[in-house]
């Protein structure tokens, strides 16, 4: 008690006390959080299990649901590693070298963040769709991109491109190139330097970026919706599967699939918080967002 009073006496400006208002504000935010976040989350699981666990399991074991889960995992397992590699490469270029057009590249990396995902999907249709620039050529050579897995992967890559790069750039800029230079003077080659110096220094930030990238890749709806064509059991990912079932009035099925996505979100959140808690110092990007 004495410590608290001396502390507040030493800093008179911050000791302005409006206990009533503070409690009111806390309650208000708690209510908003409950209404906007917890309630929907609860509803998802409630409705998924509305007709019992059996029904829930049946909807998940449905062949279309299984194929949607598989497709989602497949798309993410291609898009996320590629974006991790792209992201590291882009961040490496931007953070460790000076070159012309650097800020243009930075802007370009951010583009998917500022663009509607629908547009990110649409560009692929305009390029590779039947009426698109390369449409006739693709049809002639029997290559399917739109309404096929390739299109889903491309759309997902475009939408999730910034996650890894954005997480790494501020951290790598902060770290500078001195450690790499030191490694070179000590006789290390480029690969050794990258794998023994650069990568260990960014591992947690990279994991963090990959986590967010993955969550978005699995949850992406807009871009994927445009290129998918909604062919059941073939080109519907989990988010699209939810929409299809919901439009069919299969609420248990829709919410069961949605519960999987929600669980993915919860797992991501736990891992993300864990990383933030243990490796806050190495996630420099966090503090600047």
């Amino acid at each position, binding site marked *: 008690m004495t410590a608290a009073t001396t502390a507040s006496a030493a800093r008179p400006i911050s000791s302005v006390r409006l206990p009533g208002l503070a409690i009111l504000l806390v309650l208000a935010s708690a209510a908003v959080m409950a209404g906007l976040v917890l309630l929907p989350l609860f509803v998802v699981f409630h409705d998924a299990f509305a007709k019992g666990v059996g029904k829930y399991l049946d909807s998940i074991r449905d062949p279309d649901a299984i194929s949607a889960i598989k497709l989602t995992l497949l798309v993410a397992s291609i898009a996320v590693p590629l974006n991790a590699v792209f992201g590291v490469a882009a961040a490496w270029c931007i953070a460790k070298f000076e070159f012309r057009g650097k800020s243009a590249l930075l802007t370009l990396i951010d583009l998917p963040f500022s663009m509607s995902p629908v547009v990110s999907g649409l560009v692929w249709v305009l390029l590779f769709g039947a009426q698109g620039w390369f449409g006739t050529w693709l049809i002639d050579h029997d290559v399917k991109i739109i309404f096929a897995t390739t299109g889903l992967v491309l759309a997902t890559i475009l939408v999730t491109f910034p996650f890894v790069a954005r997480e790494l750039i501020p951290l790598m800029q902060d770290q500078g190139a*001195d*450690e790499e*230079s*030191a*490694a*070179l*003077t*000590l*006789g*290390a*080659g480029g690969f*050794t330097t990258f794998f*023994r*110096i650069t990568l*260990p*220094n960014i591992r947690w930030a990279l994991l963090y970026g990959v986590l967010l990238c993955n969550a978005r890749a699995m949850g992406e709806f807009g871009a994927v919706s445009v290129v998918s064509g909604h062919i059941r059991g073939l080109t519907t990912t989990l988010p699209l599967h939810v929409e299809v079932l919901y439009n069919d009035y299969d609420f248990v099925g829709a919410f069961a699939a949605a519960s999987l996505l929600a669980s993915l979100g919860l797992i991501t959140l736990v891992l993300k918080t864990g990383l933030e808690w243990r490796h806050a110092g190495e996630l420099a990007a966090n503090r600047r967002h």
Partner: protein
Amino acid sequence: MPENSLPTADTDPAKGASPLSLEISGVSKSFGRFPALNGVSLQARDKEFLALLGPSGSGKTTLLRVLAGLERPDAGEVRFDGEDFLSIPVRRRKVGMVFQHYALFRHMTVAQNIAFGLSVRPRRERPSKSDVADRVADLLKLVQLEGLGGRFPAQLSGGQRQRVALARALAIEPRMLLLDEPFGALDAQVRRELRRWLRDLHDRAGVTTVFVTHDQEEALDLADRVAILKDGTLRQLGTPNEVYENPADPFVYDFLGAACRLPGVVEDGRLTVADWETKAPKDAPQGRVDVFFRPNEVMFAPLDGAGLAAEVTAVAARGPDVRIECLIEGKTFELEARGPGIPSGVAPGLSLRVKPLRPKVYPARVDA
């Protein structure tokens, strides 16, 4: 001290006898439109301790990075032991570099940091695990960090980090040691302690060492020879004594210590500054000149003596020294006197004469 780990230098590098090891000729480097180095040529003898001294932006760090191979010069040549150094990539140059902020590998322990240079050698040349461990132990002992091999860089003080960086650079048995502002990030106390220690280490290791600093005291105190750079050009190269006693130009004079400047004229071997006339120094240029002298190298005389007419405006005692602020030729100078040199009865308002003991004369600057 583990004398066996580093051969003792048997030649005195200060003597001109040792052969040239580093020859830099006409090195230029620009970053965009900014010329960082402009035709710099200088040499270092074998086992010499050479300081690159200059204000920020003088190109000294760029030159060091050129030597390390981290920057490629636009023009010029660097030879080391007769070899064309520029054609050797960084990793094969075997230069030990200590970075200004040490650049220790933060995810490795002190021991791993020191062993890094050995562990990245090609398999054939890589020493065995126990040899590496022995070498690390020797180096830790050398830099007086025994028992700290298991720590991470973040758990060390600034001075300790610097010594780890030094041990890491020495581990590869470098042909040349490059130090970028080695004391820059340390506080004054630690800096002075480490200075002598570093000089000792250099003498024992017997490696040609180039170090960058902006602190003239440090350069003069430590180096065998000092290269003074400004705006990417070499202004003077010489022993600390040479450059301090005989600065090549007003910039060097000013940079190496406090300086007082007055306009004057040299004619027929006589130097005239205001109402004071004296014999002109040897090699003094003719005509209008700038006269420089150190504020502590003056003699005070009564008004009827020889020297520049001055009026005391303030007096302050600083330990054994007395700072005497004088008005000479309408300009204020802060002069220093000590012991018997202190004029008797000095107080604001006193008129006296000030005689520079060793005036240096340079051609008058156009902008002056």
